[in-house]
C-alpha cells in the first residue's frame, strides 16, 4: 500500500447513546479524519468530548445502549460498518488492536500475563501453542520484560510493566492499526517517557498507524503527526501537528493550548477554560463551544459552524481530500474563512 493512502478513513461518523428512559445523547456527530501507516494521529479534548467513544465506535465495541447512526469507516478500503459481526471479529486485533487506559483492569487477574498475551494469537489460529509461547517471549523482550515474568500474574507486575505488557499484547497479532487510549495516564513521568519511546520505536520498525487518545497536549506534540481536537462529540479542528499547534484556528484549540503550561515561560496563574463541556443530551443549538467561547459572535448561538478548510495557501489547492496530509488543516468555527469542506 502506498504511504500516501490512508489506512483508516473515518467519514461523517455519528454515534448516539440511548438511555433507558429513551433520551438520546449524540455522543459523536459527523466525525471525519484519516490515519496513515507509519504515522500517529492524536485525538485530544476534555473528558466527555467523545475521544474514547470514537475509538470504541471504530472497533464496533459500543455497549448495548450505543448506536452508530451514520458514517463510513474505511479500513484499507473496506467499510467496517457494513460487514457482519463475524467478519468484524477477524478485524479486531489482527488488523486493529488497542492499548487500554488502565492496564490493571484490562488484565484478567487470575490468568498469567503470558497466557493473556498468547490469547489473541491462539484465538485467531495464527500459530500453535508452542510457537505462540515463543512469540510471547519475543514480544515481552520487545517491550523490555524478562521472559521469566511470562508466567506471573498481573498483580506481580509493576504499573509500568503492566502497561508494557498491554503493548506487547496489542502487538501480538501484528496489527496494522493501534489504538492507544491514554496509555500513559496512570504512570509517572519517567515511565511515561519510556512507554512513548517504546511506542515510537515499534511504530518505526513495524510501520504501524497509531491513533493516540489523550488529553495531554505535551504527549501529542511529542509524538503525533496530526491531531484531531474534539469538542462535544464533534471535530473542532483537525490538521497536521505543526499547523494546528503553530496557528490554531478554533478558539477551543487556542484556549486548550494556552492552558498548557510552557516550560520556557514562567506562568503565575495557569490559564483554564471556565465551565464544562456540554451535556450530550442537552446540546446548545448553535456551536457547541459557544457558551464557553471568549470570541463568540451572534451567529454562534444560532447556527452550527461548518468545517472550513483553513489550509495555509502555499500554492497547493486547499481541499481536505487532496491527499496533501502534511498540510491539511480544517476547523469548525464561524470565525474561520475559507472554502467549506465537502467530502
Amino acid at each position: 500500500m502506498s504511504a500516501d493512502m490512508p489506512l483508516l478513513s473515518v467519514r461523517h461518523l455519528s454515534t448516539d447513546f440511548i438511555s433507558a428512559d429513551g433520551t438520546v445523547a449524540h455522543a459523536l456527530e459527523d466525525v471525519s479524519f484519516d490515519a496513515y501507516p507509519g504515522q500517529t494521529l492524536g485525538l485530544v479534548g476534555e473528558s466527555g468530548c467523545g475521544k474514547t467513544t470514537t475509538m470504541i465506535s471504530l472497533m464496533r465495541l459500543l455497549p448495548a445502549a450505543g448506536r452508530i447512526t451514520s458514517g463510513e469507516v474505511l479500513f484499507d478500503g473496506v467499510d467496517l460498518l457494513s460487514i457482519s459481526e463475524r467478519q468484524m471479529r477477524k478485524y479486531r486485533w489482527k488488523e486493529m488492536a488497542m492499548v487500554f487506559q488502565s492496564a490493571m483492569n484490562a488484565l484478567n487477574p487470575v490468568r498469567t500475563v503470558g497466557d493473556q498475551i498468547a490469547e489473541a494469537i491462539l484465538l485467531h489460529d495464527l500459530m500453535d501453542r508452542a510457537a505462540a509461547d515463543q512469540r510471547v517471549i519475543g514480544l515481552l523482550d520487545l517491550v523490555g520484560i524478562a521472559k521469566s515474568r511470562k508466567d506471573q500474574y498481573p498483580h506481580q507486575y509493576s504499573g509500568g510493566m503492566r502497561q508494557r505488557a498491554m503493548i506487547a499484547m496489542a502487538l501480538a497479532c501484528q496489527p496494522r492499526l493501534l489504538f492507544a487510549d491514554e496509555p500513559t495516564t496512570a504512570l509517572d513521568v519517567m515511565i511515561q517517557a519510556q512507554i512513548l519511546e517504546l511506542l515510537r520505536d515499534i511504530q518505526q520498525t513495524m510501520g504501524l498507524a497509531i491513533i493516540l487518545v489523550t488529553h495531554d497536549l505535551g504527549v501529542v506534540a511529542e509524538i503525533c503527526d496530526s491531531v484531531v481536537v474534539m469538542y462535544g462529540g464533534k471535530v473542532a479542528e483537525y490538521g497536521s501537528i505543526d499547523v494546528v499547534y503553530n496557528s490554531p484556528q478554533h478558539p477551543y484549540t487556542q484556549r486548550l493550548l494556552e492552558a498548557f503550561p510552557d516550560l520556557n515561560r514562567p506562568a503565575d496563574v495557569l490559564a483554564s477554560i471556565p465551565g464544562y463541556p456540554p451535556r450530550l443530551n442537552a446540546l446548545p443549538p448553535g456551536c457547541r463551544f459557544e457558551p464557553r467561547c471568549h470570541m463568540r459572535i451572534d451567529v454562534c448561538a444560532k447556527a452550527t459552524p461548518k468545517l472550513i478548510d483553513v489550509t495555509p495557501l502555499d500554492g497547493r489547492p486547499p481541499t481536505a481530500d487532496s491527499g496533501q496530509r502534511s498540510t491539511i488543516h480544517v476547523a469548525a468555527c464561524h470565525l474561520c474563512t475559507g472554502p467549506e469542506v465537502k467530502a
Partner: protein
Amino acid sequence: MSERRTLLKRNLLNFWRTFRRNRMGRIGAVLLFTVLILSIGAPLLTPYQPTDTIRDANGRGMTFASPSEHGPLGTDDAGRDVWTQLLYGARISLTIGFVAGFMAMVIGSLLGILAGYFGGWIDSLLMRTTDVFLVIPDLPLMLILVATLRQLNTGFSPTVVLIVVIGVLYWTSTARLIRSQVLSIKERQFVARARAIGAGHSHIIRKHIIPQVMPLMVANTVLIISSAILTESGLSFLGLGDPTQPSWGTMLNFAFARSAVSNGAWWFFLPPGLAIVWVTLGCVLLGNVLEEIFNPRLTSHHLEGEQHMIARPDSPPLAEGIEGGA
C-alpha cells in the same frame, strides 16, 4: 512444556503452603478424609457385612448388644453390627452427597453463568424459574417427588432417585450466587478487552468468566455437599432411603422405628448422628478455606514469589500492608 509443569508444581506448592497455615482448613480436611478412608477401607476394617446377624456362642442372635458385649459399637435390634453399618453407610451417604452436590453445582453454575452473562430475557426466564424453585419449600417437595418416583417403579434404585431429586432441587442458591458474581465480572475491563481481541461469547465465558467464578463454584460445591448429606439423612430418616443399602439416615430411621432410645441402646443412634455432624462440619470448614485459597487475589501478593524484591512469604506483616494498595 517443562516450564508449564514447574509452574503447576509451584502453584500446588503454594496451595499446600497456604492450606497448611490454616488451622480450620486442616481440621476440615482431616474430618473429611478420615471418613473417606474409613468408607473406602470398610471391608478391611470389619469382618462382617452390614446385613450379617451376629450370633453368640449358642448360635442365638445378639439383639441390642452393648459395645461392651460386642465389637466396638454393639449391635442393633436385628443383631447386626453397628460399626459395620456405620462404615458401609458412609459410602452411601457420601456418594449421595458428592454426586448430588456436584450435580447441583453443574446445573446452578450453568444457569447462573448464562443468566448473568447474557442478561435480558434469558436472565429473566432463568431467574424467574429459580424464584419458583426457591419459593417452594424443599423438604415437602422432595418428600413428594421421592415418594412419587418410587411409586412409579421407574426401575431406578432409591439411592439414584435421592441423588437426582436432591441434585435437581439444590441448584437455586448456586445459580443466584454465580449469577451475581458474573454480573459484576462481565462489566470488568478485561472482558471488554477479550471482545476487542475478537473473542466470541463461548471464548469469553470459558477463558474469562469461569476462571473467575471457579473459586466460588468449588467452595459452594463443598458447602452444597454438606447440605446434600444432611438432606439425604433427613429423607432417609423419614423412610425414603434404600433399606437394603442403609445410609446414616436410614440407620437413624431404624433406631427410631425400633425404639432404640427406650431400650437405652445409645450405640445405635449416637454414632450415625455424630457421623453426620462430623462430615458436615468437615465440609463447611473446608469450603470456607478453599474459597480463600482458590482466589489468587486473597492469597499471594505483589512482591511475593521467586522474583520478590523485599518481601518473603515468611516475613512479618509488611507484605500484608502492601496487599491493599496492590
